[in-house]
């Protein structure tokens, strides 16, 4: 009998059916992957299992017995523990506090801090993170370490079902491998593991069974390997895909849009030289956290005290602030990392979000031209094929993919000459991704220069004319034409020679840095060597 079973589960949010009569089962001692586009219902599925939402219909069975959870804490008590995409850690509290946040060891009614610390040390050792001091505040740890603490915390709740929602998204390659090892160990120990991931390669590495969801329905479950990647994608989208990426044209060099020489910042970026031609899509690759995000922010004027020279259209410029970057003189746009907190004002309307960067352009003197505003909103929606009810609805009501389209439409309205993109398709459904690839190619052909940071090698290979691989804040390799393939990207990312040297140095010097673990990433079969 399956350990955890969902029978006829239905969940509606207003007019949208998130889960439609879903039957689902997962067994103890197996790693079960859940696949599907955004809006397919994966998130709602695990939220139902984890007690975050209550289903409108249907039953949850644990070992054949019906259960219902009013709160996540009840689900935890029943042995179902979930690690969500949004980390559940409290930044100002210590690692030890966070790991034992819900039911800490007590003494005389108060929290027993020594016992709590010992517990943290044990759990951190179990996931091979002995270098984390339990007294450290979460805020002072790197994103990857925080995710590992999150996993330690989940283990501490002694789960029989462990659910991971994109839990590897923030991890370094070495930590990803650690996590996979642990998952295998847990599976062998008899725990049921459910993992949601957009990364086929990781799923191939660790999953035993796969389930595909589409539009709130459970489409199929099968053993890993029983279906090809193509079949799976078809099940997820429900239609055939011809080519993933629009064809690249042979580029004619029409001049340089942006050039950076010796660009550096605060010990995180060193001596970067790059050149984006007009109409070129330049990719940024490499392991996650090697400075790509900082480079984009730096070119947009967010970073202070940068060194080096940046020229736009041949003129040396000072990138003081996003206001300056956006200005007519420079015409730079940035699609930021997190659309919810950096790209949109969620409670404001779609129309407001679309036009917020272009209000000066849409004004006559000090006053906004209402007719021009309406036209711009209609244009933006049409151009990006954004599915909206009414432009006055809050942008929070849109799906993730449509929200990202609003962010992009907002920036296209400023008529940029240079577009910087920070992993724009992360967490977006396949259909919207396609539209974004096609859009970028169209923009490039019209002469816009594009700098495209992606954590997905397929995208770098499929979209970009050239790829720069970054490591430790430097550009270490430039790939053009046929050189752009997985092997070259991964090899460059790992920077094998330099690592060998660094290890030798590190052995001599007692102080190890956070980049050390990258050495073990070479074994991983993952095509994405980062995030």
């Amino acid at each position, binding site marked *: 009998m399956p350990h955890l079973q969902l029978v006829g589960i239905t969940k509606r949010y207003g007019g949208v059916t998130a889960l439609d009569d879903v039957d689902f089962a997962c067994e103890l001692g197996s790693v079960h992957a859940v696949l599907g586009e955004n809006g397919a219902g994966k998130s709602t599925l695990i939220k139902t299992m984890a007690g975050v939402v209550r289903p409108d219909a249907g039953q949850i069975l644990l070992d054949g017995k019906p259960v219902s959870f009013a709160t996540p804490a009840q689900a935890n008590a029943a042995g179902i523990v979930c690690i969500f995409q949004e980390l559940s850690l409290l930044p100002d509290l210590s690692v030890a506090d966070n790991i034992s946040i819900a039911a800490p060891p007590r003494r005389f009614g108060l929290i027993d801090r020594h016992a709590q610390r010992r517990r943290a040390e044990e759990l951190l050792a179990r996931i091979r993170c002995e270098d984390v001091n339990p007294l450290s505040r979460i805020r002072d740890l790197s994103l990857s370490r925080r995710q590992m603490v999150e996993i330690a915390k989940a283990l501490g709740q002694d789960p029989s079902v462990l659910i991971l929602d994109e839990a590897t998204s923030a991890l370094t390659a070495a930590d990803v491998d650690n996590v996979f090892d642990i998952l295998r160990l847990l599976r062998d120990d008899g725990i049921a593991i459910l993992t949601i991931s957009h990364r086929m390669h990781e799923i191939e590495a660790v999953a035993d069974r796969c389930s595909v969801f589409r539009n709130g329905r459970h489409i199929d479950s099968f053993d890993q390997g029983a279906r090809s990647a193509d079949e799976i994608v078809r099940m997820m989208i429900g239609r055939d895909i011809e080519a993933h990426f629009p064809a690249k044209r042979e580029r004619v060099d029409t001049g340089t849009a942006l050039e950076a020489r010796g660009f550096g910042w605060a010990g995180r970026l060193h001596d970067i030289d790059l050149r984006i031609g007009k109409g070129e899509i330049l990719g940024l690759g490499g392991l996650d956290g090697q400075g790509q995000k900082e480079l984009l922010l730096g070119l947009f004027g967010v970073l202070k005290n940068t060194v080096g020279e940046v020229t736009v259209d041949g003129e040396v410029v000072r990138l003081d602030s996003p206001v300056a970057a956006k200005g007519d003189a420079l015409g730079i746009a940035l699609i930021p990392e997190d659309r919810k907190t*950096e790209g949109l004002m969620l409670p404001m309307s779609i129309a407001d979000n679309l036009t*917020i960067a272009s209000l000066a352009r849409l004004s006559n003197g000090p006053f*906004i031209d209402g007719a021009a505003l309406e036209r711009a909103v209609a244009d933006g929606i049409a151009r990006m094929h954004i599915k909206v009810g009414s432009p006055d609805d809050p942008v929070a009501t849109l799906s993730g993919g449509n929200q990202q389209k609003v962010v992009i439409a907002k920036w296209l309205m400023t008529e940029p000459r240079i577009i910087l993109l920070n992993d724009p398709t992360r967490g977006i459904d396949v259909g919207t991704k396609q539209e974004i690839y096609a859009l970028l190619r169209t923009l490039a052909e019209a002469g816009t220069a594009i700098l495209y940071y992606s954590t997905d090698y397929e995208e770098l290979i499929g979209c970009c004319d050239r790829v720069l691989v970054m490591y430790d804040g430097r550009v270490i390799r430039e790939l053009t034409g046929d050189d752009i393939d997985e092997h070259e990207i991964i090899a460059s990312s790992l920077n094998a020679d330099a690592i060998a040297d660094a290890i030798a140095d590190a052995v001599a010097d007692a102080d190890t840095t956070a980049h050390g673990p990258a050495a073990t990433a070479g074994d991983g079969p993952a095509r994405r060597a980062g995030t």
Partner: protein
Amino acid sequence: MRLKEEDRPILYSSLFIVVILAVGTAYTMSTQGRATLLAPAYLLQQLQVGAFLGIVAAGMMLVILLGHIDLSVPWTIASAAMMATAVGGAWAIPVGLGVGLLVGLVNGFGVAYLRIPSMIFTLGTNAVLRGIMVAHTGGFAPQTKATPLMQYLAVAKVGGIPVALLVWAAVSVAVVVFLNRTATGKHVFAIGNTETSAYLSGIPTRRVIVTAFCLCGMLAGLSGTLLAGYSTKAYQGMGDAYLLPAIAAVVIGGTHILGGRGRYLGTLIGVTLIVLLNSVLSIMQMPEAGRQVIYGSVIILMLLVYGRGGRVMQ
């Protein structure tokens, strides 16, 4: 027709004004046999006094929309009044406005450039202003009188309508146009909503914040200048009674205390509600103790009715 969420506060506060008028009229009918409260002359006079609060509340709303707050309003009012009367002549009113502008610049600088939480920074500027004024005036009310123009604006009537009310109306029109029809106004909402997104959208956030504080300061200065005209002179602590009612009026009017949402019409109604409430309590000769209790209870009641603040998890 379903009521939009942002219209509910306006509807409810309007209803409550009706309730207040009804209760007050019932009281006057039973004690005086007349509907004093509903007499146009009386209402106009109350609104005339309310204009001073209304102008302050207009400025406060701009700052609250940003997600900030201006606690330096009490002594901005007093300083503007004192400097205006001290300077006298044709420069009185410009000086009053100038004081407000200067305070706004300082506040804006501290909040936008030094990133000090507005709650505590404006607390500090309030204390400094008090210190400067006490030192300047020797602790007594200044003996200088308000200029004729100041008195005119505060007290005179044009065609039966108090000029102060006209000033309030002009301020209101300006604020509405600013918020709805200018880029900076929209930027205010954006920053109050999600400052990071506003910044990354290329909005000059620091400039907008300084602008809002300057406007708030100037409006407080204007109000102080008019108040001096009304009382014919300035006096210590004349602005203290305006801070909390201004904040209350803005919030009762439906502006979210954390910023990003609100309509000016709501603030107008909120001010009217508070002014009428005070009038009724005066007519009833309610002692201060009762006034405080009623005042606080009304605010809570209104907010409960609006259903503010959702649960953390949807």
